[in-house]
């Protein structure tokens, strides 16, 4: 049985399944949708205001875990750079037949560039597959939290949550 975020430093499958910020598998099959990996009660709610479609709710008290209304989420990803915990990601299982797209917040230099081949990692920082960069968004509203979108083989969509930093060493 996995030990969860307080021991490993990353969320377990069980924590994700219980989390109100996680969409259903059915919804993921329909098109791009965000996943919010924030299972602890901490005082924080910028995600709620970030969504123009009001798909994210925290309410009062602000320690509530964020709840995702998967019927309202259109997968725009505007919430990704607004989360101070860098805990929101976008998953698109419908990107193509064989490949899924995952968008991650990224605050390191150098930023990857379009079409760059990078190494994708899982929540434990372990390299799992090669990825191709298809978008790097770093505009003023991001306030220096770039959003990098990579494509990966479908099988890895539930695992990939980061890329090996391009500047430094890893692990």
């Amino acid at each position, binding site marked *: 049985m996995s030990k969860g975020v307080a021991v490993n430093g990353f969320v377990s499958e069980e924590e994700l399944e219980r989390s109100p910020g996680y969409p259903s598998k059915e919804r993921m099959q329909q098109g791009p949708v965000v996943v919010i990996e924030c299972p602890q009660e901490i005082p924080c709610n910028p995600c709620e205001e970030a969504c123009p479609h009001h798909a994210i709710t925290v309410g009062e008290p602000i320690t509530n875990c964020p709840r995702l209304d998967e019927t309202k989420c259109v997968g725009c990803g505007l919430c990704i750079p607004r989360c101070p915990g860098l805990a929101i990601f976008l998953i698109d299982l419908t990107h193509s037949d064989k490949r899924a797209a995952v968008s991650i917040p990224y*605050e*390191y*230099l150098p930023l990857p560039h379009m079409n760059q081949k990078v190494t994708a990692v899982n929540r434990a920082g372990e390299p799992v597959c090669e990825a191709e960069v298809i978008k790097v968004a770093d505009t003023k509203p991001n306030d*220096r939290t770039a959003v990098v979108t990579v494509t990966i083989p479908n099988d890895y969509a539930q695992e990939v949550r980061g890329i090996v930093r391009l500047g430094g060493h890893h692990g």
Partner: protein
Amino acid sequence: MRVTHHPILGDLPDSREIKIQVDGKEIAALAGEPIAAALAAAGISVHRYTSEKSEPRGVFCAIGQCTDCVMTVNGVSNVRTCITPVIPGMTVETQHGVGQRRDP
């Protein structure tokens, strides 16, 4: 090692480079930065040696509270190098023990 490019703080702002002397050797410093910053950038970690056992000491708190980083600066002992800005031509010496008492 200077952090010249930073994803949040941006590029290191243009700063006038000046020279200070450390144990008789000239090193580069950026105008206005604390002495300890110039030393760290130059790879110097030892600021002083203790009185009894001559053990090396360097930066611990970096904000002027612990006094581990003190050196003799312009002939004055026990100067907290982490909160003292560099001035061109400053002389900085590795301090041994408590240094010289200042005149009242």
